[in-house]
C-alpha cells in the first residue's frame, strides 16, 4: 500500500512569520481537471495592512544594508531555489497546467533572474548616479535610492517567473515589498516565501499575500504608507480606477505591459522603483 503523503498548509508570509489570514478565510485552488490542490489563505484588508506595517518596519534595515550585502542575500535566494528546483517545477506545472519541460524552463529562468538581479545591487549606483559639474564652487552628486514600500500585484500569466522578475527589481534596489500572489496559481509564490524565509532575507522585506486580486488590490492602491504599486496582475478594466486610488499619496504607479518573461528585463524595471537624491556641498578652505 502506498504511503499517504503529508500535504503542506499554504499560509501567508508577513514580517518573517507564516500566519493564516486573520479573517480565517481560505479559498480552493484547483488543477485544470478541476481536482483539489490546496486551500491557501484568503488575505483580508487587515492582512494587507499588517503586511505594509511589516514592510515599512523592514525598510530602514534593507535600504540601509550595503549593496554588497543585498547582493549576497539575493544570490543566496537563488542557491536555495536551486535546491528546491524540482518542487518549484512540480508546482508551476500543476498550477499553470503546463508540461514539466516548459515549467522547468520557467523555473530555471526564474533562478537565473535572481542571479541577474543579485549582480545589479552594487552596480546601480555607478550606472544611475552622477557627479554633476555645477557652475560654481560646489561638490554635487546624485545617487539612486529606493522609493520605499512597494506593493506588487503579481502577474496572472506566470506564477513564478513573472513574480520573480518584478520582485527582484524591487529588492535589488533596496525596496521592501508586499506581494499579492497570482490568484489562481499561488503555490509557487508561497513556496518562494519559504525560500525567502531561510535565505537571510530579513523578516518583513518581502511579505506574501494570497487571495482575491479584486478584493485586496484597492486596499494596497489606496494605502497611504505604500510608496509605489506595480499593477502587473490587475485586470485591464481595473487599472484606471486603481491608478486613481494611488494618487491620494502620489504613489509611483507601474501599469501592466505585456511581457515575454523569459526575456531579460530592461533597466526601467529598476529605475521605476528608484528616486534620485542630489546632494550639494560648498568647496572651500
Amino acid at each position, binding site marked *: 500500500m502506498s504511503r499517504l503523503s503529508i500535504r503542506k498548509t499554504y499560509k501567508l508570509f508577513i514580517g518573517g512569520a507564516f500566519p493564516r489570514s486573520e479573517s480565517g478565510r481560505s479559498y480552493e485552488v484547483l488543477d485544470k481537471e478541476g481536482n483539489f490542490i490546496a486551500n491557501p489563505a484568503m488575505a483580508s484588508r487587515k492582512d494587507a495592512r499588517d503586511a505594509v506595517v511589516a514592510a515599512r518596519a523592514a525598510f530602514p534595515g534593507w535600504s540601509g544594508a550595503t549593496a554588497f550585502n543585498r547582493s549576497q542575500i539575493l544570490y543566496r535566494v537563488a542557491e536555495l531555489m536551486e535546491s528546491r528546483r524540482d518542487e518549484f517545477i512540480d508546482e508551476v506545472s500543476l498550477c499553470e497546467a503546463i508540461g514539466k519541460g516548459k515549467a522547468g524552463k520557467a523555473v530555471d529562468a526564474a533562478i537565473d533572474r535572481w542571479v541577474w538581479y543579485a549582480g545589479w545591487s552594487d552596480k546601480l549606483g555607478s550606472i*544611475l548616479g*552622477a557627479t*554633476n559639474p555645477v557652475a560654481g564652487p*560646489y561638490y554635487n552628486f546624485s545617487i539612486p535610492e529606493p522609493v520605499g514600500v512597494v506593493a506588487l500585484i503579481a502577474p496572472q500569466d506566470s506564477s513564478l517567473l513573472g513574480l520573480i522578475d518584478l520582485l527582484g527589481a524591487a529588492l535589488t534596489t533596496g525596496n521592501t515589498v508586499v506581494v499579492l500572489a497570482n490568484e489562481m496559481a499561488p503555490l509557487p509564490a508561497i513556496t518562494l516565501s519559504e525560500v525567502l524565509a531561510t535565505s537571510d532575507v530579513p523578516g518583513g522585506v518581502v511579505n506574501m499575500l494570497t487571495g482575491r486580486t479584486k478584493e485586496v488590490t484597492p486596499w494596497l492602491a489606496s494605502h497611504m504608507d505604500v510608496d509605489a504599486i506595480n499593477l502587473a496582475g490587475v485586470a485591464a478594466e481595473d487599472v484606471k480606477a486603481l491608478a*486613481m486610488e494611488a*494618487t491620494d499619496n*502620489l504613489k509611483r504607479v507601474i501599469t501592466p505591459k505585456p511581457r515575454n518573461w523569459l526575456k531579460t528585463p*530592461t533597466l526601467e524595471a529598476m529605475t521605476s522603483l528608484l528616486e534620485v537624491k*542630489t546632494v550639494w556641498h*560648498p568647496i572651500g578652505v
Partner: protein
Amino acid sequence: MSLFKYSPAPESRAVVNIASSYGLFIDGDFVEGTGTPFKTINPATEEVLSQIAEGSVADVDRAVKAARRAYVKVWSKMPAAERGKYLYRIARIMQERAREFAVLETLNNGKPIRESRDVDVPLAAAHFFYHAGWADKLEHAGVGNSPQPHGVVGQIIPWNFPLLMLSWKVAPALATGNTVVLKPAETTPLTALLFADVCRQAGLPPGVVNIVTGAGATGAALVSHPDINKIAFTGSTKVGKAIAREIAGTDKSVTLELGGKGANIVFDDAPIDETIEGIVNGIFFNQGHVCCAGSRLLVQESVHDEVLERLRKRMAQLRVGDPMDKNTDVGAINSAAQLGRITELAETGDGEGAQRWSAPCDLPAKGFWYPPTIFTGVTQAHRIAREEIFGPVLSVLTFRTPAEAIEKANNTPYGLSAGIWTDKGSRILWAASRLRAGVIWANTFNRFDPTSPFGGYKESGWGREGGRHGLAAYLKQGEQS
C-alpha cells in the same frame, strides 16, 4: 538696530516695452484668444501692465494641433545637431536680452531685481545652453541606444520663477525632439510672451513652441487634451494630484514638481555666520515663494537661543520694499490671493500657540506685502509645521539628538528638499542618506544648476528636472521586443 540709509537705486524700466494687450502664441504667430481676456498687474504697485488673452478649449486644441504638425513635419525629422543649434541660439538671445527679461520679470512677479537679474535670468539661459548640447548625444542619456521623444508635451508652470520654470520645461523638451504647448501662470505671463519673441528671433520653426495663457481652466484643457503625449507640471501638490487623477490609466507620461516643507537642520557645531545666511536664504529668497524653501528650521536645543538671536538680528537688516530697487532683499507677494493664503495660515500659528516675531520694516501702502516672519515654539502638529505656506514665514522647531532631527525632518507627506548645517563631514553624509528628500543642501541652501537633478520624494512629485535624470523624463526607451 536700524538699517543703513541707502539712497534709492531703482533699475530703469525703459528697457522693456510692454504692449497694451497680448494674444496667444500659436504656430509662430500671435493670434487672438477666444476666452475672456484678463489683466496682469505689477504686484508691488497694483498697476495694470497689460491685458492677456485667455486660452479656451478651442485655443488649446489649436495650439496642440500646431505642435503636432511641427512635431511630425519638422522637429522630429530635423537632424539632432540642428535642433541643438536652435537651443544655442535661444540661450544666446536670452543672454543678450537679459536685462529686459530681468526687469519684466520683476515688474510682473514682484521679486527683487537683484534676484531676477542674478539668479532667474542667467539660470534660464544656462538651462538652454546646457540642454542644447544634449540634443545630438541622447543615446548617452541612459535610456537605451535609440531613445525616442514623447511627441507633444503640455507644460504648466507656476508664478514663482516664471522664466526659469519655462526654461526648465522648454529646454529639455526641445533638446529631446518634443514640441511644446506651454501655459504660463495666470499672474505672470509676460516673460513667457517675451520668450515668444526670442523664438521668433531665433527663427524657431512655427509650432515647435506654443504659448497659451490663461488660468486653471486653460491648464485643465491642456492636461485632458487627447493628443498630448506628456504632461510636465510645476505647482501645488493639490493640483498635481488632480492632474495625476486626470491622466490615470491613460498612456500620457507625466512629471510633477510639487510642494514641499523643507527642513533646514542646524546642528550644535554649525558654522554660525554661514548658517544664519543660509537660513535667511532658505526661507526669504524670493519672498519664500519657493517649493524647496527651508520653511521648517530644526535647531539643536543647545544652540537654539543663540541661533534665534542672531537670526532676528539678521532679519532686521533685510530691506523689504520696491522690487525694482537694486538694494532690495525681499520684494512683493505675487498676488492678493497668495497674500491672503499666507496671512490665513500664519494666523493659525498664533491660534495654535506658536510665538510670532516679524522683522520691523515699513511696508509700502500699495501692492501686496508680508514682513519676514518667524514662529518659535512650533510643534510637529501645528499647521504651520505641516502645510506649505509659500511665503516669508519660518517655523522653528527644536531637537536634541541627530536621530530626532531626522525623524522630525521626514515627518511630512512632502520630500523635496532639506538642509544640513554642521562642521562634521561624517554627520553630513549620515544625515543626507537618511533624509527622504530629493535635494539636500549641506552648508548651503537654494542652489540650482542645469546639470543638477531637482525633484521630490513622496508627495513632492514624480520625476526629476535637470541633469541627465531630468533629460530622461523627456525620452522613452525604444520599444522592447
